[in-house]
C-alpha cells in the first residue's frame, strides 16, 4: 500500500514522458550527423534531451474537480503526438471553509484520433485518461494521522484519482498570424473521481449528473 503512495505514482508519471522522448531520439536526423566525434554526438544528444524537456504547451482548465481554475504545462509525445502529460497548479476559493486552497494535478491524456478539417481546424473525437489531484492543505492527509487507530478510515482525503473522457477542437494559427502560440485547442471533459464512483456503484439514487463532472480547457501549443 505504501508503495502506491502519491509521491511514488507522481514520480513514475513524471519520468514517463522523458522515456518516450528518449526512445524517439535516435531516429532524429539532427544527432545522426556524420563526421561527428563520439563525444560531440553525446553532447548533441544531451542538448537535444534538454530541449525536449522544455514543456511544449501550456494549458488552462476550469472545474473538473481540480480547482476553479488550473494552469499548467505539459509535453506531447508519441508518433502522432497522441500522448500528453500535464502538470497543473489549481486554486480552490475559500467558499465556506477557513481558507482558499491550492491543488496540484498530474494528468495523462490519450487522443487516439485526429480528424483534419478545412481551414486549419482539426477535431479530436476522443481524449481520455486519468489524473491525480492533491490538495495542498494541512486539513487533508495522504496517510491517516497517527491519532487514528491503524487503517481507521482506509482512504486518503488529500489524493483523488479521476478518469475522464472528452473531445477537442484545434485551430492551427497561420504562420503570419502567430503571436505566442502555434495552435489553440478548445476542449471539454467529463470526469469522475474514485469516491464518486464507489458511491454510485452501490446506490440507485445517484444519477450520472450527480457523479459526472464537466470541465473546459484551452491548450496553447508553443513548440
Amino acid at each position, binding site marked *: 500500500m505504501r508503495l502506491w503512495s502519491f509521491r511514488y505514482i507522481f514520480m513514475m508519471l513524471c519520468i514517463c514522458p522523458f522515456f518516450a522522448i528518449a526512445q524517439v531520439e535516435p531516429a532524429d536526423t539532427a544527432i545522426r550527423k556524420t563526421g561527428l566525434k563520439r563525444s560531440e554526438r553525446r553532447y548533441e544528444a544531451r542538448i537535444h534531451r534538454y530541449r525536449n524537456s522544455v514543456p511544449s504547451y501550456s494549458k488552462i482548465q476550469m472545474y473538473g*474537480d481540480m480547482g476553479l481554475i488550473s494552469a499548467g504545462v505539459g509535453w506531447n509525445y508519441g508518433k502522432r503526438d497522441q500522448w500528453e502529460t500535464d502538470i497543473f497548479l489549481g486554486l480552490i476559493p475559500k467558499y465556506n471553509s477557513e481558507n482558499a486552497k491550492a491543488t496540484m494535478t498530474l494528468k495523462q491524456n490519450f487522443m487516439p484520433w485526429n480528424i483534419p478539417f478545412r481551414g486549419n481546424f482539426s477535431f479530436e473525437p476522443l481524449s481520455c485518461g486519468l489524473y491525480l489531484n492533491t490538495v495542498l492543505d494541512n486539513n487533508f492527509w495522504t496517510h491517516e494521522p497517527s491519532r487514528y487507530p491503524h487503517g481507521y478510515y482506509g482512504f486518503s*482525503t488529500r489524493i483523488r484519482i479521476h478518469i475522464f473522457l472528452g473531445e477537442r477542437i484545434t485551430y492551427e494559427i497561420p504562420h503570419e498570424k502567430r503571436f505566442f502560440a502555434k495552435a489553440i485547442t478548445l476542449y471539454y471533459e467529463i470526469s469522475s473521481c474514485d469516491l464518486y464512483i464507489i458511491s454510485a456503484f452501490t446506490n440507485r439514487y445517484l444519477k450520472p449528473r450527480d457523479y459526472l463532472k464537466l470541465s473546459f480547457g484551452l491548450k496553447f501549443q508553443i513548440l
Partner: protein
Amino acid sequence: MENKSLPITVLLLFSLIAISCDMIEVHPYDTKVTGEKNLNAKNIMRIEGMLKGRESFKFAVISDTQRWYDETEDAVRAINARNDVDFLIHAGDQADFGLTDEFIWMKNILGRLDIPFVSIIGNHDCLGTGKDVFREIYGETNFGFTVGDMRFICMNTNALEYDYSEPVPDFDFMHRELELLPDTICRSVFLMHAAPGSDVFNNNVKKVFEYYTTLFPGLQFYIYGHTHALTVDEIVSDGVRYHCYQCPNIKKRTYLLFTVDENGYEYEAVEF
C-alpha cells in the same frame, strides 16, 4: 460535409454546457453549498412551535446513513407513510468521506421528510472540509431544544476528529445549558454521535461527562449511533438511573421510535 460537421460539434458542445450546469464542480471538498442553510435552527423553530404546550409526542431516530442513499430514501418514505411521528433526529455520519456533495445529497433526501429533522455531527462528517460544510448546512454542532418539559441536548462528541482544536465534548456549553435551563424542564435527554467509551470519544473525560449529565434535571436517556449496532443499556450512576440507546446504521433498515408522554416514554426499534 466537413465544413458542416464542425459547427454542429461546436453547437453540441455548447448545448452540453447549457444543460449540465450542476455538473460543474470546483473540487469534491470545495464546500460550495447550494440550497437551504442553517437547517437545525429552522427545524427546531418548527418543532418547538408545532409541539408547544404538548406533553405527548413521538420522534424517530436514524443514524449512520453514509453512502446508503437508497436505504435512507426508504426510511424517509416509511416515516412519511406513518403520519404519527412529530420529528426526526439524525444521529450523525451523513457523509462517508466528508465530500461536499455527500451532504447535499443527504440533505435533499432528508428534505423530503414531511416532518422537521435535526442533525448531529458524526466523525465521518468531520473529514476533509466536512466540518465546514456541516456547520454551513446545519449550524452549530452543540445545541439544545425543548419539547414540553423535555430538554434535548445535542452534542458533538467526535473528539478524535478535532485533535484539541476545539473542546469536544464542550463542557462550557453543558455548563451554559445547565445554568440557563428554565424551571419548567423536568426531563433531559442527551443526543450525540459517539457514545462515551467509544473510540472517537475523549475517554479521559468519560466519567466526568457522564457525571455532568446526571446533574441535569430528570436525565432520561442518551441516544447515539456510530458502531452500527442496535444496543440498549441501563446505567445507574451517582444515584441516577438512565438508559442508553444506540441506533443501528441505516443499512440495517431500522429506525428507533420514541413515544413520550407526561408519565414517561416508550422505545421501539422499527424495521422498514
